[in-house]
């Protein structure tokens, strides 16, 4: 069974600074997807970024980028130029390529962006 680990329960960063959230996972599969989701306080969970395991290039979405290290089974999220609106819970998630219902979340990292 797949597992997803986020070793940082809480983090904080100053506004405009850069922060990196860690995620490691365990799987025996070769094809899969990895995700970062953001859940702002009292608001809906939304997808931040997606990475397909067969793509070597790291995914980027504006200020959000990932460092995908397949051999190390590591999938960290970098937030550049942090904004107050980035304050949220961030969840790393794994989805098997062949079994789309198999979607595993990590425990989450609570990020606070400080003014």
């Amino acid at each position: 069974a797949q597992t997803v680990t986020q070793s940082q329960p809480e983090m904080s960063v100053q506004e405009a600074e850069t922060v990196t959230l860690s995620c490691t996972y365990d799987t025996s599969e070769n094809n899969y997807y990895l995700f970062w989701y953001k859940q702002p306080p009292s608001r809906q969970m939304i997808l931040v970024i997606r990475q397909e395991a067969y793509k070597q290039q790291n995914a980027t979405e504006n200020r959000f980028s990932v460092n995908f290290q397949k051999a190390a089974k590591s999938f960290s999220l970098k937030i550049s130029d942090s904004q107050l609106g980035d304050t949220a819970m961030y969840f790393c998630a794994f989805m098997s390529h062949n079994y789309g219902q198999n979607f595993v979340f990590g425990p989450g990292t609570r990020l606070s962006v400080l003014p």
Partner: protein
Amino acid sequence: DVKVTQSSRYLVKRTGEKVFLECVQDMDHENMFWYRQDPGLGLRLIYFSYDVKMKEKGDIPEGYSVSREKKERFSLILESASTNQTSMYLCASRGQGDRFFGPGTRLTVL
């Protein structure tokens, strides 16, 4: 935009009550999911449905049941609520692509 809505944002029930949590999506998605979110545990899958009247158990189905009579609606039922079911409940739907989440229902069982 995909919309996934849940019937209540906050709900308070008493032990032993029957509780219905409803989820509606407007994008004709085949797959719908119910998750439970607890601090330090992330999201855990309770049940999912891949078609009308079809359902599959997730990782923690005990104490829950579901109903999917129409494609757009997926209900989570707590037959006899217990205090250990106090939690945040998230519904999600998925077509061929990403999952979309509802706003969540924070259920407190007294």
